[in-house]
């Protein structure tokens, strides 16, 4: 085996009750350990359903045909409780994820649930808050925090239980640009330090561009799965299913349409900037 997969999905199909067609349709997806994988697709394409399947919150239609492996172990009604400890999810709305009266209580919640001994718990809470830069706020009431701070606390709650996989489900879409960059920076640092795998559902095209791999999902099917630059070279396909491409591709296409030709070999913003500057200085 060349590469170890932390998540493997085989022929996974899931249909919501009373729905006329599956939300996830015969999906096969491998997520390499330690990678940052973005899942993109329009609303209702099945992105969140995939992560709920991975977390065992819902089970596939046919457990005989569909298989999901987390870190090599098959997800079954028996293994789901243990496997779920490996996975933490940060959701879109920070206000929906608070249970504790203080920031520290909130971070401790997941540890209490897992019956971690108190001395260890205190140590882990302190470390997790430090990791996300919220150690000064341990005694603060969560409602007094900004959106970005709340999301950092949510991440601390996940780091404290030492998972292998962090799922970001639109976790930055309510934040201002600075808050968003902070969260992505923190998660990336932790990913490197603790060799975490990050699965990110997002419409933020810059975050997608910084991933190792991008999965494009449409109608519950995996349409494409590749490195960002390869994915984004299919601008037409992405536009057809209602998704954005990074800005420099939009500039390139827009210039083409306006009669300024740009070589198709250009595949980064820097290259486009340099090309336009050279073109200008030659004139």
């Amino acid at each position, binding site marked *: 085996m060349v590469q170890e997969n932390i998540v493997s999905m085989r022929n996974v199909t899931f249909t919501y009750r009373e729905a006329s067609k599956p939300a996830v349709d015969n999906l096969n997806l491998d997520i390499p350990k330690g990678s940052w994988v973005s899942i993109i697709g329009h609303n209702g394409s099945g992105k969140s359903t995939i992560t709920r399947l991975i977390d065992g919150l819902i089970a596939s239609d046919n457990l005989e045909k569909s298989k999901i492996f987390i870190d090599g172990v098959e997800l079954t009604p028996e293994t789901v409780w243990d496997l779920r400890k490996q996975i933490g999810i940060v959701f879109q709305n920070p206000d929906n994820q608070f249970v504790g009266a203080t920031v520290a209580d909130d971070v401790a919640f997941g540890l209490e649930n897992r019956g971690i001994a108190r001395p260890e718990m205190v140590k882990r809470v302190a470390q997790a808050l430090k990791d996300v830069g919220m150690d000064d706020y341990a005694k603060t009431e969560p409602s007094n925090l900004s959106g970005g701070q709340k999301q950092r606390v949510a991440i601390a709650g996940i780091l404290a239980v030492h998972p292998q996989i962090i799922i970001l489900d639109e976790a930055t879409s309510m934040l201002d640009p600075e808050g968003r960059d902070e969260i992505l920076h923190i998660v990336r640092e932790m990913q490197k330090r603790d060799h975490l795998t990050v699965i990110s559902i997002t419409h933020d095209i810059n975050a997608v561009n910084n991933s190792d791999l991008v999965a494009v999902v449409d109608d519950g099917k995996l349409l494409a799965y590749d490195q960002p630059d390869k994915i984004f070279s299919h601008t037409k396909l992405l536009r057809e299913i209602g998704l954005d491409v990074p800005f420099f591709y939009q500039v390139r296409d827009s210039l083409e349409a306006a009669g300024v030709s740009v070589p198709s070999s250009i595949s980064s913003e820097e290259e486009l900037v340099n090309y*336009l500057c050279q073109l200008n200085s030659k*004139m």
Partner: protein
Amino acid sequence: MSIEFKNVSYIYSPGSPLEQKGLDQVSFKIKENSFTALIGHTGSGKSTLMQHFNALLKPTEGEITIAGYTINKDTSNKNLKQLRKNVSLVFQFPESQLFENTVLADIAFGPKNFGYSEDEAKELALKWLKKVGLDETVAERSPFELSGGQMRRIAIAGVMAYEPAILCLDEPAAGLDPRGRKEMLELFKEYQESGHTVILVTHNMDDVADYADDVLVMEGGKLIKHATPKEVFADASWLTAHHLGSPTAAKFAQKLAQKGLQLDDEVLTLNELTQALKAKMKAGEA
């Protein structure tokens, strides 16, 4: 209907240890039929300001003139119904406020509440169901069976269905996919162009550049700038100092400028950037 704030301050929990200034001497006038973006950091006072638009909060000091009402600290909570029909607020995650058994009933609730007959309300609900991009086939379904994006559209339709003169929305497109985001913003723009005033609270500077003709910038409860998008985004160092971003096209133009390609005009949108680049290349050829 224009909106005017005169020296409006608002203090949370006055006289208590938790006393905090939410708004600090805010004065401005928004023209009728404008598309105004309200920007600023979390905690800058945007939501506090927004809640003053229909007297959910009333000024501790100062006075607001809006939709024929004058609101100050003495304004009674009675008789505000007409104000709330004329000025509607859509908060973040409005889909969490859906409650009816069917999509159509949920959208029709607002119009009925504001005095439309059962039939009129139903007609308006159907009209706005389609306007927000949903199919008539979902009308009789439970809103809770639908996707998050569809629920968002239903909640927004429920507010637009009684066609308020002033519509104020807080991050209405957050979490929608790029096409959905564009469709919703086009809908608000169209609503403005058909004779209404739209106020959009947003972190997305591209939306400010693409849709707004007027911008209010809040910081620490103070209004620190009130200008057109061109004026607000012209001063990159001012934006950096106040931790505000620029539209993507403007950032791209800055990168070009750093490498020696200075465009002749300030650009905020993809279209402006394209035209400015084209002009530059054509001038070179001539």
